């Protein structure tokens, strides 16, 4: 998961690692991978009111070769699964996966006895780092998911946590 497949350097510089991971966290480039309804909330997060660009993640690249994080937003159908795996494989290391929405976590509202068409969750075939529940999750939830991912990458939380009143 995450940076596991990166070849570790022969000499480890601790502060250099910290700076590199801070740099990576500050500019996570997501891939535009909206499959269904959650894609619209992802677009809304990148748009004017919620503005994901504040957190460095504004550049949604269509090409997987240029991204760090793949936000699986929407239901994965069995017909689409090979394409998703191909896109994941095409991303360069280090890479992360966020499963956004109930469908990407566990199939969502489309799981029923005798279902023939969807894959019940992105973690059936991808290593998922962050799960964002909701159907669809609010843009604030997606931002919180990105911040959690940044915490996972750097090891400390860089933004204040929102307390429930």
């Amino acid at each position, binding site marked *: 998961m995450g940076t596991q497949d990166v070849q570790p350097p022969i000499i480890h510089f601790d502060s250099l690692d910290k700076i590199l991971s801070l740099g990576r966290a500050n500019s996570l480039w997501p891939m535009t991978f*909206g499959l269904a309804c959650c894609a619209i909330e992802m677009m*809304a997060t990148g748009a*004017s009111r919620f503005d994901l660009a504040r957190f460095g993640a504004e550049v949604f690249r269509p090409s997987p070769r240029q991204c760090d994080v793949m936000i699986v937003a929407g239901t994965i*159908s069995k*017909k689409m699964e090979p394409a998703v795996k191909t896109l994941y494989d095409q991303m360069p290391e280090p890479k992360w996966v966020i499963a956004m929405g109930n469908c990407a976590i566990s199939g969502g*509202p*489309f799981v029923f006895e005798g279902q*023939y*068409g969807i894959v019940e969750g992105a973690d059936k075939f991808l290593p998922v780092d962050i799960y964002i529940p909701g159907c669809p999750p609010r843009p604030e939830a997606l931002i919180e998911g990105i911040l959690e991912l940044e915490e996972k990458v750097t090891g400390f939380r860089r933004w204040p946590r929102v307390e429930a009143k």
Partner: protein
Amino acid sequence: MNGFLQQDLNQETFTLNLGPQHPATHGVLRVKLVMDGEYIVEAEPVLGYIHRMHEKMGENRTWAKFLPNCGRMDYLSALSYNHGYVAAVERAAGIEVPERAEYLRVITVELNRISSHLLWFGAFVLDLGGFTPLLYAFDDREQILDLLESVTGSRLTYCYFRFGGVYNDIDDAFITGTRAFIKRLRKRMPMYDALVTKNIILIKRLKDIGPISKDMARRYGATGPVARGSGINFDVRRHEPYSVYPEFDFDIPVYEEGDSMARYMVRMDEIEQSMRIVEQALDKLPEGEIKPKKAVKMVKPEKGDYYHAVEAARGSFGVRLVSDGTNSAYRLKLRSPTYSNLSLFGEAARGMLLPDALALMGSLDLVIPEIDR
């Protein structure tokens, strides 16, 4: 030299795959293109990448348990889909809807239509290369989403209608908020008009691109703004009135040219007409119940098959349900408008340049989960 080149040209076609992952405006659509340079020789859409088995779930779930599915078919105008399904079941089971509930339905459906057209507008211009109108359109859209969230509880995939009415009433904050929003949007529409619609680049990219004739629209069953942009005056709200639409005074924009510019103008005009409907509905809103007096405990339509159509943002959405008297459908067929609209892409895109074909596809206003159901 011409003959030599012609022969060579025939061997120069290559197959290009468009999608299923491309910038996330439309969804997961794959188009197999046979290209001759930049010209399309043949285009064949491939569907099924987001097939979520709605019709099978219609048979497995009870009538009421299917309601959340309606919002997820076409998530941009989810309330129209709610309306179509609920109205079909009400027709089948003979449930009466109180008048205030009908007015609330119309108000929320028309607000949803405006938000769907605004998102289409932003995404369409994004396809053509302009990023900024998307941000402006989303700003307006967020205001509608705030209003609808205060009533229905959700931002995108609404499940607000129930059999025989709606489940939540509106308050004064909603009414004043909606009136303020309409005033604000009316002031902003001239800005969209001046900056985008009259923009010479947009005009050059859309005028005379992707012509769809009346006969083509008829043979493929295209409805909605695609048909109205080709000169066919067909709108289910006027043609086959349902709910309380006969009480409102609104126009149906119809443009004759049949190109992408005409379809664009139809949708921009429809935003204004929807605002008119919402204003009139707020003025005439009656007091009363929002749920039927006799609570509908268990919906059990009579045996037989029924049909009901509503005007969704993309065309005529029809529900054909076959009931066998039990508490779930025997067969639920959802006639999605974009399915018929997209089927003419194969014939309409022949001989076009690839960017023009994308402009045509954007002007058809596709939402792929609605096609795949």
